[in-house]
């Protein structure tokens, strides 16, 4: 069953798709005041493409939405919640808002442990830039369906959540 629905594939085609992983994608952070010869910070992240594949292929967008992807082990070092089995299990079940767990990858050359997509931090880069940048990288990892659609669904769910100031009171036995 697991082999019928692999999580990942390795591709090198020019068409970018939702779920493609881009390594060390540069994100330019401009200063608050831009003057001649200004200094800018460049931050590099491993990211996953969140923009819809149809928009990318048909070039309906100028900017591609990207979310950073972190090894779960690294997140454990930065936050205590993910150190516990309970925290990891809640993450796996999709109960931790803003984070989405990805399975291990066992493809030779692209082996990696569990990773977490961070929905709270979103970046955008020009589509033309990303196409050229991905081409230079050569082969890249791609998240396959239905795990890709699950990622997209969780992304949407994170942004459409609504907190109610006064909710309906819970039901109880009378």
């Amino acid at each position, binding site marked *: 069953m697991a082999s019928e629905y692999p999580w990942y594939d390795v591709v090198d085609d020019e068409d970018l798709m939702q779920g493609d992983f881009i390594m*060390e994608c540069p*994100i330019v952070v401009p200063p608050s005041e*831009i003057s*001649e*010869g*200004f*200094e*800018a*910070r*460049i*931050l*590099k*992240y*491993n990211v996953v493409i969140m923009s819809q594949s149809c928009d990318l292929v048909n070039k*309906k*967008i*100028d900017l591609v939405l990207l979310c*950073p992807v*972190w090894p779960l082990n*690294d*997140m454990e070092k*930065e*936050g205590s*919640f*993910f150190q516990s089995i309970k*925290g990891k299990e*809640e993450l796996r079940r999709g*109960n*931790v*808002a*803003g*984070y989405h767990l990805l399975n291990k990858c066992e493809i030779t050359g692209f082996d990696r442990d569990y990773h977490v997509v*961070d929905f*709270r931090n979103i970046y955008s880069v020009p589509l033309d830039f990303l196409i050229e940048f991905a081409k230079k990288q050569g082969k890249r990892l791609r998240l396959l369906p239905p795990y890709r659609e699950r990622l997209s669904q969780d992304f949407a769910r994170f942004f459409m959540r609504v907190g109610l100031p006064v909710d309906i009171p*819970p039901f*109880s*036995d009378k």
Partner: protein
Amino acid sequence: MMYQPTLEDVRYSFDLYPCHSPVSSAIEEIDRDEIFDCLLAKPRKHEYLKMTLLNSFVQYDSSSFLPPHFEMENNTSLIKELTEKAISEEVLEYDVFVKMPPIKEQIVRAKIKSIEKASIHIVEPEEFYGE
């Protein structure tokens, strides 16, 4: 040394010393085995409920050398209150934030190539009904 009752003791005493049945039918409807299963249940989230139930329903005189006599208290409302509290406290979604640094960071000096106002890029809906 204070007598520490085990689950077997509690169950045994119930069998040998029939206690006064609680007036409330709600308690009689609760299967004793279910209560004990709850007490022995592994999930930690019910730990508070387990201990509170145990302390609420079972009272014993530990100073006596005789086998302890256990009595059920009439605590129908307490079961309901504790169950509701346990359900309402169950977390459905966790709001956790972990700040991660970038993989690499560098400072560059940039020369302005052009500054212009962005132009709109309209994507018209595709026509589903061919003309």
